[in-house]
């Protein structure tokens, strides 16, 4: 069972979680970390999550729909930055993913987590991981 960390922005993702899509079993161990806005997710936090899990998903609002105007843009840029950084650390960039959640975010979040888990299954264990959860 793949262990994932998901950063969920309070604007969309956490709201969807409250709507109850997690009533369905996901079939994976996901640690949800709620943040007030995607712009709050920092590079160091994404890297830290990679030390303790197999992959990281950052989920925020679609383009032009961030309540804080540019939080989603910043989050997306940081995910891209980490993806560029990982090969230098001999890690696979696919371990970090960004997901845009709209009004149908419940399905999208589930799909994004599923996609991430699937791409991770082809990679083998995370060599950068230092501890179990």
């Amino acid at each position, binding site marked *: 069972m793949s262990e994932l960390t998901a950063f969920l922005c309070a604007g969309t993702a956490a709201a969807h979680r*409250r709507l109850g899509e997690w*009533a369905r079993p996901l079939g994976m161990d996901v640690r949800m970390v709620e943040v007030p806005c995607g712009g709050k997710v920092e590079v160091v936090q994404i890297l830290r999550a990679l030390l303790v*899990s197999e992959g990281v998903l950052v989920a925020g609002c679609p383009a032009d729909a961030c309540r*804080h105007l540019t939080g989603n843009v910043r989050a997306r840029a940081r995910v891209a930055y980490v993806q560029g950084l990982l090969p230098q650390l001999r890690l696979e960039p696919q371990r970090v993913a960004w997901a845009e959640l709209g009004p149908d975010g419940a399905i999208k979040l589930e799909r994004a987590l599923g996609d991430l888990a699937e791409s991770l299954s082809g990679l083998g264990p995370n060599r950068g991981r230092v501890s179990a959860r």
Partner: protein
Amino acid sequence: MGVLTGCSDRACLGVDLPAGVEPLVPCRPEGLARVRSLLEQGQAVVVLSCGRELAEREGFPAGLACVDVREIAWLAPDEASLRRRLDAALTAAQRRAAALGWHPAVPRRFPAERKVLVLGAGVAGREASRALAALGCPVLLVEGGPGPVTGLGASVEVAVSTTLAGLTGHAGAFTARLAGAVSGEVSCGAVIVATGCRWELRSDCYGGLCPGAGIATVAGPFAAADVPAKVTFWLDAAPGEGRWCFEPALRTAVSMAGAGSSVYILHREARVAGDGLEALYAEARRRGVTFVKYDRVAPAAGRLVAVEAGSGRELAAPEGLIVLGLSAAPAADAPAIAGALDLDTGPDGYLQADSVHAEPVLTRRRGIYVAGSCRGPMTEAEAIRDARAAAMGAGALIAGGEIGRTWPVAVVDPDKCALCLTCQRACPHRAIVVDSVARAASAVPQACYGCGVCAGECPAKAIQVEGYADAAMLAEIGEVGR
């Protein structure tokens, strides 16, 4: 590990608390006192209850984590899933509460000026002023035109031929600079922008027709006495027309048809996507109004005719009194107003509420609201609804004479602040101010939305957000090196 406490009201919570949980009722004074005393002793406290309001009321103290057990209980499909999810939530909360990060107390209540500045004395501005007066807020209604503006009651002060030159401060304590007939500075707690939009007749799209004998526009007055025998509403030939033209045309058509006129409405699209418009359309049909859907307008034998696109067939020619649609465009001073208020204009030039996630009348700055056609053309009914919503928003924020904070805010550590102003540039809500004496930036709690965009950008790691301190977040992500 924190002290585990939980609401002992099982009927309310809907679930039995796990073993080892100290029972208390956090919404009763004794329960609250117990939580406070534990926090004062420097203990981390996890409260299992029915929401996060406790953290909000207590000002997001470090060391307090709330788990919404009732929500988990309601949403869990079965007992095993409930226990699993409860365990996960509890572990996360304990980690978060145990990470006692740097976290100075920020006040919860701030005095607020009760006066509201309303810009624009159109439909929306007058309605907002009336609604605010009913809420007990004094209003200064500023109108750029010469007026007069009357009939709004004693608590609405009116300044005509006056414009807003600038605005400083934040929600509850704005200072507006006025220019024109009334000039000088005015203190206000909130601002409602209702400056409307510009309506213009695009004669070029209507074959050069201009208002005059036999030609009017949808905004023009129609006296009951001079209801013509034949009237043609000619709409949709110009860009910028929409239901805001269709609605007054329909309304007038219904009354004219009722008075015995034969009425034609030439349109490209029946714009009925609005409250009551479908019913109005049906009423017009019932009264014998003839709707003609055309594709383009072409000159024919010295007059204009509406033509079907494919066949080129002539459908109808405007007859009798011709009433033309008006194009809506952003007011000429929209950029100036946006500049004075530090708001954005949207891609089409209107002052828009910036985000589809915010409520429509909210702007990116707390305490500044946009109502009516200044944020996009709309019908009168829609503008009135907007104005009431904005007035309610402003009233809820400041009518009590103070702002009671229920949101987490960013806190800047002045010792770490290097005054690089990155936070000020990044802040989407214009909440960051720079104290030149302390030589540090700070977030104004009344204006801050607690989004943490500044905290994410700060190169010196000098900014923490209440409830989302770095230490608490790292603890929640997971312990390293065990």
